[in-house]
Structure formats: C-alpha cells, structure tokens
C-alpha cells in the first residue's frame, strides 16, 4: 500500500499567488542587496514561525556582521500540534521556499543554506533532494549563480530525530552541531553567534516563501494585504471539528468567526489558536482577529465543538509538553508535571479552588522563569482553558463530561 499525502491545486492572495521558479532569484540579482533589504523593510514581513520578529531586521543584522562565513537556516521542524502548512509548502511549492533561501543567502552574504527537516518528514527527503539537483543543473545553485560573478551558494538538507524543542532556533543550532537539542541562553542571538559560531539567519519555511514573492512583486504589493501591524497573508493550518480541514491562505486581520465559516465549522465551542503553546479562545471572543496585535499564531487553528471535553483536551496538551520538555531548566521540567498532577486531581474531583489558583500562579511563574519558549508558553493552555471553561471543568467537580450537552 502506498503512503497517502494529499495534494491539491491552491490559490491565494500572496503565498499561493502566481510564481514561476527562479523569478525571485533573477529579480534579486537585479535589485542588489540594499534594495532587497529595502523592499523587505517596506513589506513589514514578520517571522511566520511564531515569534513574529521582523525579517528585514534579522537579515540586516546578519548582512552587517563582519565574518568570513555566514549561514541561512530554514526551520522546517514544524512540530507545533495542529501545524502542517510547512508540509504543504515543501511538497507543493518548493520553488518558493528554495528561491527564498537563495535570496537570503545572496542578501546576507552566505555561501551555504541548510534546511532542518523534522525526522517525521523524512518521506520528503528524496523529492526535495531531487529538486535541489534540478536547481544545480540549472545553475540556480552552485558557482556564479545565473551568471552573477562570485555568487556561490548551495543548500543541504539535515534531518531532525523527533524532538519538538529542536524547532526553537538555538536548540536547532545545537542539533545541527551534533549536540542534544537544548536551547541556549540568548543573547547572543543566532544573527551574531549561530551555526558553528558564525552569524546565522534562522527563518521559518513560510517566511522564506513570502520573501520570494516580496522580492518579485515589491514590499508595497505585500503590504496591501493584512492589517497595518500584521502585513500580508498567513497560512492557517485548520484541523479539528469542521467540514473542511486543511491549509488556508487568508489575510491577517480576519475574525475567528469568519474563519470558522470558511472552514464550515458548526456548533463551535472553542478554538485553540497557536497550537498547544497557544491560547484557547471561547465562543464569546470569536470576534477577535487573527494577527500580531490580537490573537497571534504560527498558524495552528484547532476547532472544538460542543461535544468536546475540554479537560481531556487540556490533558492531551500537557502530556505533549511533559514529553517534549528538554528538562534543562526547573520551571518547565517540574512545572509541567505539577500542572498535570492538577489536571488528574480535577479529573478525580479531588481538588480545592485555592489549589487551582496556586497552580495558575505556578503557570505564571513558568511563563517568566523558563529558559525558552516551550516552558514560557506551556502554561498558556492550562490557564486559558481553566479560565474559559471553569463552569464545565471546575463547577461540576470534575464530572464535566457528563454535564456537557451532547
């Protein structure tokens, strides 16, 4: 039996708009470094991997760094529960991603690009390697790319081995260097001290795909979409209770309830925005917009209908964090376990409200005291689910499931 990853024809305002392989690279070579950085700056593009750091700033810092080697790393570790847009980009739009990497290499002055592909996506390795071989044949990689004197650049693919935390950029670099994927203290940031100690840009797959369009069509064109604080469009990975799960390209600023209509979700009780590390948004807040200024997300949208047991959902998230914590710092290593103990106590109807309040406080401490984004965000779902669904979960003495309308 063959494995079965579905692909389909897509269209969208920005990322899924028309683009032919190498167009962006050609335009970049004409524009030159300064103009590329200028267009990026105008575009207002922010990182699509979750943290939302302005891409132009990251590239400028690396371009300006004085070093004899630099790297561009494409973060294809896509491990956040409910996220699968990078899978679609890599399988269906490799030209956008790879052209974006080449453009980054040219702009910052790197000779090598590395794609860190999560181990779970090993089935993509051969097609992507074949694609790179084609690019080499057509001089989109290699020496004097497309006739540009002294622009030598190549891309290699490195696999992860099943560790969510390796998506964190400094853990990713540790992993590339052959170590355990444990996040580093920052600063120094990768733009200064990255792979093997050299200045390194780490960008999400979707960020790089957006760059190819921006360079070709201009920062002003990109900025026409979205809101003033969240320019352009976003790929949303939609799963859970809806008729049409999948990847949608929508402008930033869309309301949650509008998105729910598009994907034909019915009787929705809650939406988890941003995956396990994001927040749970209840029905009363479906007027909120998706964007850096309100509900920010790397793209994961998980929908829960009236029949779902929110305590069970929360428990699933906490199991995830306990497994994926690297264990390096105490707030995260111990804190997640303590939160889980609380969940089990609630399940058994064996808790006091002051105990739950203490756990929420612990969660807030983890948000400030953890070393990396994993432990800083793992309490988000605990806090938001217990706050939004206190009636279902806490007022029923843990018997929530039986009290929820079927």
């Amino acid at each position, binding site marked *: 039996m063959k494995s079965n990853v579905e692909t389909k024809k897509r269209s969208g305002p920005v990322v899924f708009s028309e683009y032919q392989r190498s167009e962006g690279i050609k335009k970049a070579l004409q524009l030159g470094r300064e103009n590329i950085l200028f267009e990026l700056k105008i575009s207002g593009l922010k990182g699509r991997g979750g943290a939302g750091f302005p891409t132009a700033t990251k590239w400028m810092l690396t371009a300006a760094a004085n070093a004899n080697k630099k790297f561009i790393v494409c973060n294809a570790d896509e491990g956040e529960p409910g996220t699968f847009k990078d899978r679609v980009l890599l399988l269906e739009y490799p030209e956008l991603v790879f052209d974006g990497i080449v453009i980054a290499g040219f702009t910052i002055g790197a000779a090598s690009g590395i794609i860190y592909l999560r181990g779970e996506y090993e089935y993509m390795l051969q097609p992507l390697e074949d694609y790179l071989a084609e690019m080499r044949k057509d001089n989109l990689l290699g020496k004097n790319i497309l006739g540009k004197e002294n622009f030598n650049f190549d891309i290699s693919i490195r696999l992860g081995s099943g560790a969510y935390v390796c998506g964190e950029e400094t853990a990713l670099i540790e992993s590339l260097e052959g170590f355990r994927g444990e996040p580093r203290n920052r600063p120094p940031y990768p733009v200064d001290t990255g792979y093997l100690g050299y200045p390194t840009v780490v960008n999400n797959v979707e960020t790089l795909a957006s760059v190819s369009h921006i360079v070709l069509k201009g920062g002003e064109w990109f900025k026409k979409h979205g809101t003033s604080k969240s320019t352009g469009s976003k790929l949303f990975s939609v*799963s859970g209770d809806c008729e049409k799960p999948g990847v949608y390209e929508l402008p930033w600023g869309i309301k949650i309830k509008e998105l729910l209509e598009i994907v034909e979700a019915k009787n929705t009780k809650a939406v988890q925005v941003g995956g396990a590390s994001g927040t749970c948004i209840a029905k009363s807040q479906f007027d909120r917009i998706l964007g850096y200024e309100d509900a920010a997300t790397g793209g994961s949208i998980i929908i829960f209908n009236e029949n779902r047991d929110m305590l069970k959902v929360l428990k699933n998230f906490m199991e995830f964090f306990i497994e994926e914590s690297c264990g390096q710092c105490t707030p995260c290593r111990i804190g997640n376990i303590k939160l889980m103990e609380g969940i089990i106590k609630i399940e058994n109807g064996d808790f006091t409200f002051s105990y739950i309040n203490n756990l929420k406080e612990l969660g807030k401490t983890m948000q400030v005291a953890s070393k990396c984004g994993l432990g800083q965000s793992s309490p988000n779902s605990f806090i938001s689910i217990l706050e939004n669904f206190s009636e279902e979960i806490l007022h029923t003495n843990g018997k929530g499931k039986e009290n929820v309308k079927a």
Partner: protein
Amino acid sequence: MFEYEKNSLTEEIENLVKHYGSDRPALLQILQAVQRKHKYISDFAQQEIARLLNIHPVEVYSIISFYSFLCSEPKGRNIVRLCRTISCDMAGKDKVESAVKRELGITFGETTNDGRITLEFTNCLGMCDQGPAMLVNDKVYTHLNPETAVNILNEVK
C-alpha cells in the same frame, strides 16, 4: 555479537565517517544512518562511533537518549508510530489504537514476538487535517480507521 558482525559494523561506520566527516556535526547524521539500517544503535556501534569521532562514548549515548527517533535497544524490523496528539485523538485515534493492539497482540511500547513490528506513540506528525495518522518507518498513512490501519500493518514484512 559475532566477531564478523563487529567487523562489518566497524567497516560500515568507517564508511559513514568517510561520507559525513569526523567533526561533531556529523555525529547526529551518522547515528541516524545506523538507526535507519539497524533500527537501533548497539553498544558496540556507539563505541566505534565515539572512537572514530574522538569523543567519549557517553557523549554518543547522551545524544541517543535525547532524540526520540534514536534508541540503544533493539526494536522490531518496522517501527509504527501512531500520532496521539489532539487532532488525531479527536479524529478517532483510540479506535485505531485498540484495533491495532488486538490484531498484533501487543501493546504500545512493545515489539511482536517475530520481531516484525514495534508499536509506539508519537506527537503531531503534521497530518492533523487528515487524521488519524501514523508513520510506518518513514512512510506516512492518513485517514486511518481500525480496518485500514490493521490492513496496512498486515502488509508490512
């Protein structure tokens, strides 16, 4: 392990070192290659890798213990990883789980007696729109139900 097996493993690792290099970034790639072929990284393999990369064997072990796709104990010829994260859970992962357990007569974390299959859980595979999903070695299968899942596993050699 027999002496001739050791010799061939040493030769294999020497070739990997030739291919990936002997500096530190090569370590994870070499371990992944050994894991892919043997489904585990034996003590002997760890020692040989450490020797050729000029690092302490404990360093090698510490990498293996960190990454969930690497292991130091033998497993089945095929590794099946069922996604247990929320979207697959809501799409019916529990039913697939029980059917697979019943059919193979083992539970998750175990290997069949004939060494054909090891069952494991894994976190989100990036197939949440098509769940329940599982990996069989490096191949991904989606939209599973109890019957299709079992059929897929019965075809695995």
